[in-house]
């Protein structure tokens, strides 16, 4: 079985949103994804990291961690913060629902993560933090 692993830890500042999605997309490139699959991964990572920064840490100081694993043709991503947590995860996942309308959040973050990845799990405890698990398997290209 093909296996590979990488970890990132960075400050919760908005400059790192682009860094995080590009880094994970570059790691996933070894699975030979299509351009569309790369775009899917970048969008999902961007949503999860943005959530950690603005909701988890509410734009205050903190660390965002990303743990990526490749197993065979699948990418597994865990994104975690030690922020305020989510009181009602099911509610947070509803399309168009946001706790920050005054910041013009569209409430589409979890919807995009669910749409673009194969699987999404959210674990969160108020005042402890949030962990997002996402998987995406890349179809093997015909040679």
């Amino acid at each position: 079985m093909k296996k590979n692993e990488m970890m990132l830890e960075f400050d919760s500042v908005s400059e790192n949103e682009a860094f995080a999605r590009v880094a994970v997309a570059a790691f996933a490139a070894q699975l030979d994804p299509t351009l569309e699959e790369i775009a899917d991964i970048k969008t999902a990572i961007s949503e999860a990291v943005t959530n950690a920064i603005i909701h988890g840490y509410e734009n205050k100081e903190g660390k965002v961690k990303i743990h990526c694993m490749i197993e065979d043709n699948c990418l597994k991503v865990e994104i975690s913060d030690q922020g305020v947590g989510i009181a009602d995860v099911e509610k947070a996942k509803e399309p168009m629902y946001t706790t920050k309308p005054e910041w013009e959040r569209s409430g589409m973050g979890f919807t995009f993560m669910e749409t673009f990845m194969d699987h999404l799990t959210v674990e969160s405890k108020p005042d402890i933090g949030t962990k997002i698990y996402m998987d995406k398997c890349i179809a093997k290209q015909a040679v």
Partner: protein
Amino acid sequence: MKTRKKIDSFFEVDDACLIIHITDDLDHHNVISLREKADRLIDKERVKNIVFDFDGVSFMDSSGIGMIMGRYKKVIFTGGKVGVASVSNNVDRIFRISGLYKIIGKYETVAEAVQAL
């Protein structure tokens, strides 16, 4: 008479239409400064309609959706409209999934959008 005024490399005002040339990935980080500048111009130039030029933009996430919806809410009270032009496939997918095309128009070019709005 129509007047087209170039504010800087990102913003132009054509009559009462604000044209915003987006040149980078449209994420939460880039949305913050863009929103501030756009809102200042919307008030100062008495903007009615807005066209977002996506030429060269390969990435947008839900922060971009929030920013466009926010500007839409700003101009709709005065009968204004919002359009997007030169949208890449990746950005188009985000617009389609979010349902944003129900409230904004999609056009091939900026000129076409300015004409149609």
